[in-house]
């Protein structure tokens, strides 16, 4: 197991180097002049040149790259010009917000989509199956910002059930002591019921928005995978042996049907983490997606590079976790390597 981990990590090194080089080059070929943007509305060409010099953008590309890599080795991702903070501290502060929201949305989606998919497969062709298809199609065809705005409109503006869409906590509440960076968990650790309720209330709408969007792939894959497993021979044997329907579906079929679902889950998670930019914008969520987009609009290189790098690392870790999950679910995988 350890050897496997080590081998897998080793193969990620070329990928990481590639990401560093490409993200550096891509940000430089983007149109837009950082210096002109940050020299302000009343800048003279001289002022712009001065800013360019201060930012080190007047030096040749190889030299800029060398500086970037050296800083990176020291764990320094550079300075964001849009927020004025070191990129590392920005990412540290914002990644948990995005991760919490994404995980929350994903768990919500799982809780609904997996039972729905299983039920649809077991009762193929029933009303439930059609409902599953309808929900999945609707979920994936509604753009997230639209669902988000719609939910805000109904639950905040009209019904007033939900608190103001102002990010992770109400303006007058204070954040729990940071342990994991996830407010829901941190407030539980601090045994602070009020903060827990407040942050739950805040995360509910954006979480549901994300869940609606990610329901579709999970439900569809669960259904398809369950269908193929249910029609396989071992299930028939189990049925013929007189095992209860519950035993057949839950113990035998479900576990075997989980492999493709886990794979999809990994993909959906990484996709959501990057794609929840719009949800973050709608709910003023201080996450990493909106951070990267704002930086991109201002041609602010460092945060964009930092974001791409963080995402690359996350993908690598995620893939590793999925591999490990495979082994836990499917004993055959353990002996394969």
């Amino acid at each position, binding site marked *: 197991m350890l050897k496997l981990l080590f081998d897998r990590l080793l193969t990620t090194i070329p990928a990481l180097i590639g990401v560093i080089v490409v993200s550096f080059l891509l940000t430089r070929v983007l*149109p*837009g*002049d*950082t210096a*002109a*943007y*940050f*020299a*302000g509305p*009343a*800048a*003279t*060409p*001289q*002022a*712009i040149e*001065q*800013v360019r010099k*201060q*930012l080190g953008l007047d030096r040749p590309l190889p030299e800029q790259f060398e500086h970037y890599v050296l800083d990176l080795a020291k764990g320094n991702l550079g300075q*964001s*010009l*849009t*927020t*004025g*903070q070191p990129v590392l501290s920005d990412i540290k*502060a914002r990644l948990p917000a995005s991760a919490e929201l994404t995980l929350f949305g994903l768990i919500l989606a799982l809780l609904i989509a997996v039972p729905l998919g299983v039920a649809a497969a077991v009762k193929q062709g029933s009303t439930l199956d059609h409902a599953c298809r309808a929900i999945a199609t609707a979920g994936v065809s509604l753009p997230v910002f639209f669902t988000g*705005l719609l939910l*805000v*409109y109904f*639950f*905040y*503006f009209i019904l*007033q*059930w*939900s*608190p*103001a*869409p102002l*990010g992770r906590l*109400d*303006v*007058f*509440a204070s954040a729990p002591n940071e342990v994991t960076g996830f407010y829901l968990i941190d407030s539980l650790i601090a045994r602070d019921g*009020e903060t827990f*309720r*407040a942050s*739950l*209330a805040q995360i509910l709408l954006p979480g549901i928005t994300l869940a609606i969007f990610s329901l579709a792939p999970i439900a569809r894959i669960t259904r398809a995978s369950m269908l193929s497993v249910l029609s396989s021979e071992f299930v028939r044997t189990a049925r013929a042996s007189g095992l209860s329907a519950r035993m057949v579906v839950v113990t035998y079929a479900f576990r075997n049907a989980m492999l493709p679902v886990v794979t999809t889950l990994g993909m959906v998670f990484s996709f959501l983490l990057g794609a929840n930019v719009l949800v973050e*914008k*709608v*709910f*003023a969520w*201080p996450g990493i997606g*909106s*951070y990267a987009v*704002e930086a991109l*609009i*201002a*041609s602010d290189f460092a945060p964009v590079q930092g974001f791409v790098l963080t995402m690359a690392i996350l993908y690598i870790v995620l893939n590793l976790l999925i591999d490990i999950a495979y082994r836990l679910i499917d004993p055959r995988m353990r002996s394969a390597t």
Partner: protein
Amino acid sequence: MDRRRFLQSTSITAAGLVAPTVFTPANAQARAETLLIVSESGPNNLDVMGVGTNVPGYEASWNCYDRLLTHEMKTLPDGTQYYERDKIKGELAEDFTVGPMSATFKLRKDATFHDGAPVTAKDVKWSLDRAVTVGGFPTFQMSAGSLTKPEQFVIVDDHTVRVDFIRKDRLTIPDLAVIVPAIMNSELCKKNATASDPWALEFTKQNTAGGGAYKITKWTPGTEVVFERNETWVCGPLPKTKRVIWRIVPSAGNRRALLERGDADISFDLPNKDFAEIKAAGKLSVVSTPYTNGIQYLGMNVTRPPFDNPKVRQAIAYAVPYQKIMDAVLFGLAKPMFGAPADKATEVAWPQPHKFNTDMAKAKALLVEAGYPDGFETTLSFDLGFAGVNEPLCVLVQESLAQIGVKTTINKVPGANWRTELNKKEMPLFTNIFSGWLNYPEYFFYWCYHGANSVFNTSSYQSKPMDAFIEGARDAAASGDAATYDTDVKGFVDLAFADIPRIPLYQPYINIAMQKNISGYQYWFHRRLDYRAFVKA
């Protein structure tokens, strides 16, 4: 799941949603003493003198630092509080005298910085030295008032500072009342300076080192800024609001929802459409004020055909659908800069409307006269950063120009790229906005029409008589020669309208909406919010 159980579970979920909105008493108390402001973007630096400080950063600086001087307020007929351009009073200076070649400032003896250190002449000198030395925007702004060298700032005694003029310039004194020359706690800054950063720019980026009416107690970049009142502030009446929370809410729809639901107190810089609808609904109080010395215009590159021909430029000026832009794009929320009566005399003022109107027949005739009977093709560029106004505006112009045979392709330039494109001065036809902090006609014209060809002379307009009028007006203003000043101002305005290298469209408005119990909004030349006067009833 059967129907009954489904209904049960949904009602439980609903109950869970309702519970958290109940306010605790402590919250209610805090709410009454706090002003909650929402806007689209927040500061990237708390120091106006920093590298690349954005416009929201100016608001942080304005409220946390004092300057030597500031402006008085006046009340407009519609009740809006508006700064008095010509009435300047002391802020940190309790008294000041302006001589022919210098000005002397007596500092308040009781003024202190947030850390309790007294404000002395050496802090003032250090801060002004910093402003003219750090380079970039602050140094440039100082030079607009002929403040360029540290030697100009002299310590007379502990509480007296003299500013020497390098030349007579009417803008020197007003330039000491803009945001840039903020007075900083020099000892605190020096303590945090390093060899590579002698002016402690890194420190003041994250911390306020001033003595202003508010201090920042929490700043989460991109999310919120929390201001607390400085209880020992002596440079004006103590502000009524104890705490100001400035939340960044990127979605315009949500900002409006927050305001209409009563969760936010003030929404800054609303889209015109929202503003018009909020005003019609009448549940909130709204203020809309024209940008001082600011104009949205249609610019043409006069160095190349076809726009090097004044007849073509006039033809375009007759083909712009001015009124349609006012109605459909701006919802009437702007001051028209077109269609002055033909017999109206030119005023000694800027901005003022020109005499062009939409007249397609005249436009077509001028185009024929200029030798383009079949029109021509060109591109029309705009800044995507302000697409809300620019895009519909350009579409209307495109439609209208097509009627006289001028085919335009619309070129959308991303916000980050706009400044670069302007600097290149290659776009043939474009729309843009310019507005100056200092509200003087010759200041606007120097940047936008003078042959020195600054970034803002986006048309690359060159004219000897124009330069002579502008320089004449500047000199006349400095020496107090009113008659020459008036002639020169009228001269450059007339020439700008005759040659029409840029077609003024309208003076934009800045829109603020707030709850009915909020009062005390003040319009300042920098257009950002001044928290000191706000009152929450």
